[in-house]
């Protein structure tokens, strides 16, 4: 789960990490009054859960409350990478001397947490890692032992940051680790961590991702979840229905099946057959008529879909039960498109007979099924 910058800054502040004073605003009026409160120059920042806000014009400096209001009007209602801007963070403008990077995340390959510190902050850290890896210091953290002081020392001295600020940076790193563990983070990132012209060290930006699997023990953070904040409308609808769905947008073939690996493979096979998969949809282990019906409806929400391929491996699922669900679900479809069904497992023969005389076409393998749906759509993609 991602949270917004202003929420992440609240979390950081709770753990004692210094952040610039500021407040979230939902309208130009509010932007103006927050700017008034803060006094002086302010920065108005779009709150959307996507990177590259600055480049998209979603972050603007304002000289006065009136100017802040004007900037707020421009930013609120903007569309950044498909996501509408509904709120902005108004913060006191900071005079920056240096910009650094500090982050903690999971290093999957090392099977440990990793602390990353770099003197090259304020830019995409993955780009820094690719192009100038010597500007990045990384230390791996064994969570059984926790982050040790010598590791922080190693990271700070290896990163090229201003050593006269080491004490402040060390304190922030300690707090960031404490925060990461306490909130079940999968990412806690300060980019940039700035040294101001007055010599203060402040988290100018804040990014926190929380492990979805841990939300059951993070009730306060779970409340911040905005379903749909980082996904499109169909994906948000799927999330509400509890169905694993990923939208690929421009494809013509809706794809569904049971089990993530099988569905991914089905998408690959459809693609090889000359079709273009529109989505990933996993109906899971319980292929009940209700789930199948919901899945059909979700897929058809995208008007680009003009055919559906359903691939079920019926290990312990009975194929006749699935077939019955399919036939019922098809009758209720808002838009009748060609459907090819491939099933294997218990009672496969009964299922095949049941499908005869229905608009649902049966195929016995993933490959022939994919070829069939592509053929039925006129081979176009």
């Amino acid at each position, binding site marked *: 789960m991602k949270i917004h910058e202003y929420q992440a800054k609240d979390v950081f502040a709770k753990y004692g990490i210094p952040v610039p004073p500021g407040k979230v605003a939902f309208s130009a009026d509010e932007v103006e009054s927050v700017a008034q409160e803060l006094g002086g120059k302010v920065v108005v920042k779009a709150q959307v859960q996507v990177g590259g806000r600055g480049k998209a014009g979603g972050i603007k400096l304002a000289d006065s409350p009136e100017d802040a209001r004007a900037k707020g009007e421009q930013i609120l209602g903007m569309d950044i990478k498909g996501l509408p801007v509904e709120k902005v963070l108004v913060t006191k403008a900071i005079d920056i001397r240096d910009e650094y990077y500090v982050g903690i995340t*999971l290093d*999957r*390959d090392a*099977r*440990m*947490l990793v602390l990353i510190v770099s003197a090259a902050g304020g830019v995409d850290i*993955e780009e820094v890692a690719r192009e100038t890896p010597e500007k990045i210091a990384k230390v791996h953290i*064994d*969570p*059984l032992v926790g982050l040790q002081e010598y590791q922080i020392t190693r990271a700070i001295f290896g990163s090229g940051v201003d050593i006269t600020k080491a004490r402040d940076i060390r304190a922030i790193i300690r707090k960031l680790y404490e925060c990461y*563990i306490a909130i*079940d*983070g*999968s990412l806690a990132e300060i980019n940039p961590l700035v040294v101001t012209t007055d010599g203060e060290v402040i988290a100018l930006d804040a990014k926190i991702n929380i*492990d*979805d*699997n*841990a939300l*059951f*023990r993070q009730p306060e953070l779970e409340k911040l979840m905005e379903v749909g904040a980082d996904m499109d409308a169909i994906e948000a609808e799927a999330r509400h229905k509890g169905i*694993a769905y*990923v939208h*690929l947008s421009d494809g013509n073939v809706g794809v569904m*099946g*049971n*089990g*993530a*690996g*099988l*569905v*991914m*493979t089905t*998408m*690959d*096979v*459809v*693609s*090889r057959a000359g079709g273009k*998969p529109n989505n*990933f949809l*996993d109906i899971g282990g319980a292929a009940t008529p209700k789930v199948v019906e919901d899945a059909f409806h979700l897929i058809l929400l995208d008007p680009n879909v003009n055919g559906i391929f359903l691939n079920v*491996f019926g*290990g*312990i699922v009975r194929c006749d039960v699935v077939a019955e669900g399919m036939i019922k679900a098809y009758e209720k479809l808002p838009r009748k498109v060609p459907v090819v069904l491939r099933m*294997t*497992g218990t009672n496969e023969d009964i299922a095949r007979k049941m499908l005869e005389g229905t608009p649902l076409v049966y195929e016995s*393998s*993933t*490959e022939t099924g994919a070829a069939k749906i592509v053929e039925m759509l006129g081979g176009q993609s």
Partner: protein
Amino acid sequence: MAILADKNSRVLVQGITGGEGSFHTPRMIEYGTNVVAGVTPGKGGSTWQPEGVANPVPVFDTVEDAVEETGADASVIFVPKRFAPDAVMEAADSGIEVIVAISDGIPINDMVKVYSFMQHTMTTLIGPNCPGLVSVDECKLGIMPNHIFKPGPVGVISRSGTLTYEVVNQLSEGGLGQTTCIGVGGDPIIGTSFLELLMEFEQDSATECVVIVGEIGGSDEEDAAEFIPEMSKPVVAFISGRTAPPGKRMGHAGAIVSGGKGTAESKIKAFEAANTPVADTVPDIVRLCKESLGK
């Protein structure tokens, strides 16, 4: 012959009286698995015997008690995600040799801790969030469908569930039986990687060929590919998720291409560099296995 578990394995089920445990344990027994004990804290001293199970299974409060009383050396964990990390560590600490954790939805930071803990033990952990393992005609630790397996020379390792069944089913139908089939799990942090299992299969005299069913995300496939040139037996690879867009998690928590890492291309390239054929489709896996075995 098989790897990790066989007909002599004395199997313990943690969470035997829960929904998943009580559904799947009879199927494990039906497959021929020697289930010697169950653990459910608070139900120690009782026995568990659902319909169709011939002998009652003794239930213990702790894994330690179960090991002491029954000599259990393998464990299958069905307990809910909140208690699963603890259950894994309890089993490892009690001297269980092979643990299969079926439980899904375990917080990543818990698994990082468990992984670190496991490095200080002699125990092998398969999973979590996996379908388990089957040593064909010997034992089943997990939830795979019983009827798809046939005995033969192929070892199978996979990150998926139903896709594994699909591959095994087509191998069996194509006349290629298996030694041991293992679903390693779809999470970002899992107990045992492809590489470690390839090493096990290399040591197993009955296994003549190994199939790796990989998917996008992480670098376990690349790590495994590096070992293949040192092996005496052929490997056939398959990668799922070639059409998956970057930044989107494809069902499995671990199946995501992020920061340019974990792409299908990178994995295919790694296998090709190791002279390992990469199948384009599941039927292709069967064909390439046959070729590599000279059939």
